């Protein structure tokens, strides 16, 4: 079990974190591999958070925000989406699989979906195997340290 993948999930406080809470109150079981970090809005998530997580030993990073149109701060999730595309490219430059990060919209009532997502994403990361940095530039390493 201990060499299972490790996954950091950044969840916005309003929808997705509440959705994950609902998975709990509904007692829906999912993998302990996923570890949740709360941010107020998915728009707060910076590429450096993701890189930091990968550097600290995460094999994958899940980002969840409110569904389009539902962001508590109007458009934070759209901003997250834009940054997410940048981020995927950035991972490519480091020689990492873009699929190691995933962005999903999870509403406050989608506890079941969150649990399924946690499991399916973990499964996918398990398939990709443990993370292996190929070409980590010193520059970026310093940035995320």
């Amino acid at each position: 079990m201990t060499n299972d993948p490790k996954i950091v999930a950044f969840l916005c406080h309003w929808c997705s974190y509440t959705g994950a809470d609902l998975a709990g109150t509904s007692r829906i079981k999912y993998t302990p591999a996923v570890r949740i970090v709360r941010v107020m809005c998915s728009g707060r998530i910076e590429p450096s958070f993701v890189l930091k997580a990968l550097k600290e030993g995460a094999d994958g990073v899940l980002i969840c925000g409110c569904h389009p149109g539902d962001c508590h701060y109007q458009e934070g999730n759209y901003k997250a989406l834009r940054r997410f595309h940048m981020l995927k490219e950035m991972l490519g430059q480091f020689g990492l699989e873009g699929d190691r990060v995933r962005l999903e919209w999870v509403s406050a009532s989608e506890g079941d979906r969150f649990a399924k997502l946690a499991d399916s994403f973990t499964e996918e990361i398990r398939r990709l195997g443990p993370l292996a940095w190929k070409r980590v530039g010193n520059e970026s390493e310093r940035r995320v340290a």
Partner: protein
Amino acid sequence: MSHEPRIGVYVCHCGVNIAGVVDVKRVAAEMASEAGVVLSREYKFMCSTPGQEMIIDDIQSHGLNRVVVAACSPRMHEGTFQGACRKAGVNAYFFQMANIREHDSWVTLDKEEATRKAIALTRAAVRRVRNHEPLETRQVEVRKEVLVIGGGIAGIEAALTVAESGNHVYLVEREPTIGGHMARFDKTFPTLDCSACILTPKMNAVGSHPNITLMTSCEVEEVKGFVGNFDVKVKRKARYVDHDKCTGCGACVEKCPVKVPSEFDEGLSKRKAIYTPFPQAVPNKPVIDRAACTYFRTGKCRLCERFCEPKAIAFEQQESTQEIQVGAIIVATGFEFYRGEALSWYGHGRYPNVITALEFERLNNASGPTEGVLRMADGRVPQSVAILHCIGSRDKNYQEYCSRVCCMYSLKFAHLVKEKTGAEVFEFYIDMRSPGKGYEEFHDRIREEGAHLIRGKVGEVTDLAVNPEEQGRLIVVAEDTLAGSRLRVPVDMVVLSPGLSAHRDSKVAQLLKCAVDKNGFFIEKHPKLAPVDTATDGVFLAGCCQGPKDIPDTVAQSQAAAAKALALATRGVVEAEGRTACIDPEVCAGCKLCVSLCPYKAISFDTAKEISVVNEVLCKGCGTCAAACPSGAAQARHFKDVHIFNEIEGVLAL
């Protein structure tokens, strides 16, 4: 304030909720060795008074200046523990919670894994709290106005309670009239008082109350803001009648040549294209059904217009939007009557004398299609009636839950049938559920009245006769599970009693960021201790939108929701977010990126200093600026990079 961190860690058992899965002792022991931790304890119920007092005592006797509680979701008890810290003189933002219940013990099967995860989550909180900074909270004024969504008995009662206190209410109802389901009933269990007699006065009171703005044919389109300060957009559908001019005389309705099935009467009678849903409607003014109106369909007619003296007909009327500002919102959108596939097993739609409970209510209603005479499709009065419980209810193929009111309303039907027709009544139930004040007595009374209550769920209703007695009748097939025999009971009429469903669209829930359960009903903040609160502060629940219930419970809940909304208004202020953004003037490069990104226009550019500045009153703390700032000058308080990094290290540390 920048003294050395002295952290106290508290791991909650939450009875067995956490301790049954997570080795809480081990979690506490692991934390003791984290830098800055002065003490680390575990306790049965941290949120209880002794739990909170323990924190307060420790702060005082051990000089703690940081507190971490590993327990339930911060959405549940962050406020509780912050309060305890504040009481002991520690800034509320020196507190951090680790969610080891909703995100761990309740979702993890393996105990070892759950314990490891709990350690990781708690460690993340400990590491982050070290770098916390004290924040000042501001107080924001609460608007006194309250929005009630839905005008059934729940919304009516909530609106009246709030209005009576002197506060203003906006009551938004999507139909042309208020009243909801209750307006369609004849009698109500268990007292059998006449529904109209108790409801109509309340409806009229809503219509004429100076503190209530009644908005029928309206729906909520958009909700912005937060507790105490919601900005709501309400869309009014075109009614094609100017209600300011209309006197409700009804001349137009009389002249309208178009007849379509009446929704209010479940299609058992006809209404006009210009109509008021029922005689006691509030407002008692008609609307035009565009889809049915000849003028809208063909461009000719306008008969109503010709006969309207006050010139209130307004074919040119358009949908419009109105913005309102409120401090609290009460959701009272009720339920949908179940009309799903389960009905088809019992011949509904195939046999005209198989009717649903709502059709029965209308047939029994003095102002209904038959003026209250229970008649079959051919006009005869039935000699025998079967009432079938649990249609689509307690059924994993359809609705797994028990709708709570159907046994009782079915018993009410038995009484009404007996009283009005003297017919034999066969009532088929699985388990008779009559808990409630006076309910068991009501059940008993129906037995005394001679209804045949048979324990067994009906499998089939058929018209296939196997003997002359069955010829031309409906045969109800069920097992009398107490006698152990399979019965075929020929009857004249079958009444199907389905349960209550949640609204299929969850638009209101989405607008309010409220969660709904797997059946679509709104989830309360806590099933026992916060039954009318929701996860969204300032949004309260009343009536069947939260789950099936009868009128007494609905009314009680409505009054509770109103009290909650009023408590907020009376307090007058709420603590506003201390977690705003800030820009370090030493670091800001003046690129203005954040100025354009902020959704609240809270960042302005100081041209003299050539840096951006945050207006903290406008900032809502989303952190978008912090994420975008290329120089790292913009930071989200309490969610600074360092905090997130600490947390990442923590959650990955085991």
